[in-house]
């Protein structure tokens, strides 16, 4: 019983490791993609006031 729980836990651990890593990689890809598209088709900067809230 405990052995099968441990075996399932190890599988879950492996899925979690791969899942979190893949998630970060995907989101990083999206980040790069967004920066690229924004650079190719730029919008216009209206304002950028450091430290000031609207």
């Amino acid at each position, binding site marked *: 019983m405990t052995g099968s729980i441990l075996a*399932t*836990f190890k599988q879950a651990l492996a899925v979690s490791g791969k*899942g979190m890593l893949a998630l970060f990689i*995907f989101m990083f890809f999206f*980040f790069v993609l967004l*920066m690229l598209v924004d650079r190719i088709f730029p919008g216009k*900067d209206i*304002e*950028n006031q450091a430290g000031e809230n609207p």
Partner: protein
Amino acid sequence: MEGLFIGFTALTWKQLLMMAVGGALIYLAIRKEYEPALLLPIGFGTILVNIPYSAVLDQFEGGRRVAGALSIFFRAGILTEIFPLLIFVAIGAMIDFSPLFRRPLLLLYGAAAQFGIFFTMMAATLLGFGLKEAAAIGIIGSADGPTSIYVASRFARSLLGPISVAAYSYMALVPIIQPPVVKLLTTRGERRLRMDTSQKKISRTTLILFPILVTVLTGMFAPTAVPLIGFLMFGNLVRECGVLKKLSLAAQNELSSLVTLLLGITIATTMTADRFLRLSTLLIVGLGLCAFIFDTAGGVLFAKLLNLFLRKKINPMIGAAGISAFPMSARVIHAIGLKEDPSNYLLMHAVSANVSGQIGSVMAGGLILALVH
């Protein structure tokens, strides 16, 4: 004459208790306004399916099966995954990605705040759940009802009821769950941290290309995630293309309302006494809370880690808004920030992280489907 009283004579205490559970869900929906669009239909459906010999479920008469209306909806809408996918179209049409485009780095926060999914999945296996069941329970931490339902309908149909109820209940309880976790993991100085405001304009081309490119990129690496991310991004493309305003409004309003209504009452099909009144339901409720707590912790701790490398620091509370509960989580973080410093407006930053959480939660669901066999 005896046939008239068959309901009374066949009623069990378990069915009566389930009707009380249904009543409690209706109370929470109406009185406390906890996710009323979902909890009210689920609550009423729970009453419907626990009436003895209720004809809303399949019944056997004279040796042949007579299909019940809710059972038909369940087979047609949940088992085929159509209802959750249609909800994704509606959600996609509601999401405005432009706050995220102004702060694209916050995309990573949408990944970090999914930590609770994986942590809970591991915890569930230690409590004796199988890998697929544990994955379906962990996905409660996506803080995203349709994703939870989609994954649960694939991996653990018998647990669909408790998983859905836990997911929607905790989404409604985000204002109670997140603040203590955020305060525990941050100092007052960190909570008062101010951030740059940017009102950079985003080109329409970027808004149109983003959903298409994200779908293609995701599909090339994780084809199992395509239904989830694809329907979400399709809805968003309808919104951003600018030539389908009527369809976009229909998706945001009529489609969303109708499918939510059907989804809620159909999920109740799994809320029968024999399926719901089990120890596993209590465990799922506990694990769901664990998922939301570790999502929040994962987001905050990642933000603190990233701040070690950033020149312009980001308020670590923003990390907690990387969950998918939109816009509830962003509002909660903004409110904590205002309590610490009444002139520090974090709302737009938190909204950006919250939007990235919507992408992150769907991606996490797709990855779980791809990785768990």
